[in-house]
């Protein structure tokens, strides 16, 4: 099939710089796209024939719940998606990501799980201060707290216990890696680690969404191997891998992101990440 004859749908919530760059990249490759706003879609689960016209649906929802349902609905329709619903579900829950990294022998951080305030306090004490408490579902650093001492631990655990939502009562306690004021984000597309950035910040959270500065990080064989290993562990496709540099253990995977953001990474690395995404998407059968 020629690229011009492919039918690609992009389902997104908003056209952020990433979606705009992706749409423009498809246009550069002469691949027509149709953009659908997930806020206005209604899916008739008994009749998904509209969606069967597409060769690929590229899901770029900013909402994880919408992303999961859209992916599963496309699976029901028998339409190929990027990424798959398994990747979204595996990356969308930090416990599941950690489970899959450990199962597949990918170096990652030490994590303790607990389900009650009392056991969460014991887990935090066992991990030692400072450590990190994260919600299992969430992104952009939301709800991620550094716990420096027992007072802080009691405050955050009590708060989480008071909050509605069962996921607040799942306690994911992570070691605080002694990282050198930066972490690494690598971009994996299929079997290739195409680029990586350092994210540097004075704050202990180096997320660029929270002000971390992006600069080019060379893709060494070690970085490529661990990044591709992490991507494969969660199901492959197009993902961004967040890593720490531990002074003794080397690279450790922190998280894997299923709907990767790359607006700051294209200028920092000089790599046409959206173009490489398009090349991979159209090459898949």
């Amino acid at each position, binding site marked *: 099939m020629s690229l011009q004859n492919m039918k690609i749908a992009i389902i997104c919530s908003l056209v952020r710089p990433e979606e705009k760059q992706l749409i423009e990249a498809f246009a550069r490759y002469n691949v027509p796209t149709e953009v659908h706003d997930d806020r206005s879609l209604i899916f008739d689960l008994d009749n998904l024939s509209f969606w069967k016209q597409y060769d690929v649906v590229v899901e770029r929802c900013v909402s*994880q719940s919408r992303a999961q349902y859209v992916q599963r609905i496309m699976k029901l329709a028998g339409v190929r998606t990027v990424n798959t619903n398994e990747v979204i579900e595996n990356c969308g829950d930090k416990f599941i990501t950690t489970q899959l990294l450990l199962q597949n022998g990918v170096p990652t951080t030490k994590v303790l799980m607990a389900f009650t305030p009392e056991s969460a306090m014991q887990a935090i004490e066992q991990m030692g201060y400072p450590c990190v408490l994260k919600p299992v579902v969430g*992104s*952009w650093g939301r709800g991620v707290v550094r716990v420096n001492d027992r007072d802080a631990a009691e405050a955050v655990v009590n708060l989480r216990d008071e909050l509605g939502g069962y996921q607040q009562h799942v306690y994911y306690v992570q070691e605080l890696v002694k990282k050198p004021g930066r972490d690494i984000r690598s971009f994996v597309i299929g079997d290739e680690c195409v680029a990586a950035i350092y994210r540097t910040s004075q704050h202990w959270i180096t997320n660029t969404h929270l002000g971390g500065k992006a600069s080019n990080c060379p893709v060494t064989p070690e970085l490529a191997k661990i990044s591709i290993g992490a991507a494969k562990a969660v199901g492959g496709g197009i993902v961004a891998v967040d890593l720490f540099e531990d002074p003794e253990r080397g690279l450790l995977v922190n998280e894997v992101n299923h709907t990767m953001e790359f607006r700051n990474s294209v200028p920092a690395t000089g790599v046409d990440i959206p173009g490489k995404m398009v090349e991979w998407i159209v090459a898949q059968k």
Partner: protein
Amino acid sequence: MTAECPECAGDVKFKEAPMLHELVRCGECGAELEVVALDPIKLDLAPTEEEDWGE
């Protein structure tokens, strides 16, 4: 091309035609805006971040 910022009524300038639902920022007040119509360009305040937003 310009459109009125719904927050401060300032002019939001476009160097090139925006896409529908594109996010833009008002240069005068800094508000994050969504392009909700193209001809003519109409802007609305962008949706606020929800609990499950992310990557």
